[in-house]
């Protein structure tokens, strides 16, 4: 068997092992590669920066544990950013598991920034229906969400005083890993109610949202763990996304090498067969 044939029938477990090494070695021994901030992430950051203290930010969590490595770092950084700027957070979840993940992020940051549940932030929980829920919130938020995530009536919380519909919300942030998610918020909250919407999405879905960004339908976009690391960089906080960036870069370099290497031997083999 020639060397070309050997490479053509290489055991895929060797590739798995090399990718495993490419990820684990930089995690154990960080290189400290520089993280450049892209324009969509800077727009996301600036949109929040431009809000005045006391403004209301609606955070909608549409992700679950399967996409936590990408979206949860954004959630953590976003909540810290809002608390640091004294913004009020009203949160909901169009995915059931997003509610508890967002609650964890808010509780952790609240301890750090001295914020109180019901006064500075609230979690209205999950509601099934996706786009219909968003539409109903545009009409009347307290009727759509009469209770918080722990089934307590929302009237008892000071933060909900004066919150009726999207008119009382200054910015909408959707952290989304699929549908319903950013797309639905753009369609209803931006399209129908002309509210400012920014989004944090998984890398797989990010390309689908760049046209929204170009058209001004989204005011900012964070895509995947890379985007989350850029956002952490802007905030000056080293979180889990930043910690994974060395591994991401080395793994990408490895995959690019594999593609070039495989194509080289593919064309070499084809030439020899002729």
């Amino acid at each position: 068997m020639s060397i070309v044939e050997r490479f053509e029938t290489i055991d895929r477990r060797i590739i798995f092992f090399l990718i495993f090494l490419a990820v684990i070695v930089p995690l154990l021994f960080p290189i400290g590669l520089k993280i450049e901030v892209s324009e969509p992430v800077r727009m996301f950051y600036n949109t929040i920066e431009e809000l005045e203290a006391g403004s209301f930010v609606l955070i909608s969590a549409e992700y679950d544990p399967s996409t936590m490595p990408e979206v949860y770092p954004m959630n953590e950084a976003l909540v810290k950013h809002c608390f640091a700027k004294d913004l009020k957070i009203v949160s909901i979840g169009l995915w059931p598991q997003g509610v508890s993940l967002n609650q964890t992020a808010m509780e952790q940051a609240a301890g750090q920034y001295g914020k109180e549940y019901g006064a500075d932030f609230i979690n209205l929980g999950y509601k099934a229906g996706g786009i219909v829920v968003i539409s109903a919130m545009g009409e009347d938020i307290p009727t759509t969400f009469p209770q918080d995530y722990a089934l307590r009536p929302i009237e008892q919380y000071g933060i909900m005083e004066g919150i009726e519909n999207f008119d009382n919300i200054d910015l909408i942030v959707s952290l989304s890993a699929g549908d319903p998610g950013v797309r639905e918020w753009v369609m209803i909250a931006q399209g129908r109610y002309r509210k400012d919407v920014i989004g944090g999405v998984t890398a797989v879905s990010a390309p689908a949202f760049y046209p929204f960004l170009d058209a001004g339908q989204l005011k900012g976009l964070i895509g995947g763990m890379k985007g989350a690391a850029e956002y952490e960089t802007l905030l000056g906080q080293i979180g889990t996304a930043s910690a994974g960036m060395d591994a991401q870069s080395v793994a990408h370099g490895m995959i690019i090498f594999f593609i070039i290497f495989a194509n080289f031997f593919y064309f070499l083999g084809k030439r020899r067969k002729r």
Partner: protein
Amino acid sequence: MTTDIGTWIAALLTLCIFSFLYRDNPFYKFAEHLFVGISAAYWVCYYIYNILIPNLYNPLFIQGQLLFIIPLILGVMMLMRLFPQPAWMSRFPLAFIVGTYAGYNFITYLQTYAIDQVRATMVRVVDVSAWQEFFAHPGVVSFFNAIAIPVVVVGVITGLIYFFFSREHKGVFGGLARTGVWFLMIAFGASFGYTVMARISLLIGRLYFLLHDWLQLI
């Protein structure tokens, strides 16, 4: 290394799933079946307590809102799908759902995906400020910023020409269609790149959990 039992269970199940990369084995099978079983039970409970009870049982049977009999009947009709004889009844609630969503989404899709997108493409064919920036500070970044919008416009037009099948793709028309294919290929490549990035991120997330939360090495 942590002493938290939950982290240990999560770490061992992660290793069981990873073991499939070597080959199929009983540890992988165990973790897979456990996941399927727990997921099914979790979602059944979740739907009962978070959807059925607050959205149907409470309004109808606790608050006495009789209008909610309609969704109850529609729901029961949908379940008739499970029985061969009255299975036809499920078509009515299904038709209701399809009709409602089609009507509901029609305008919003048109607004979001057609009108706003087309307007954004048409009104900014030439971004004067980007060109001014390029001539003031010539460089690679300012050049790409300046040509970004013309590239989008050319991509939209040639992409649409590629999907115009009423005329044979020959001559100038064929050349434009082939340019459209190039744009599509670049878009697919970018999309695939993002997909690779997402999958690597998930691997990083799991390995970070093993090294940080379980082994506490980092």
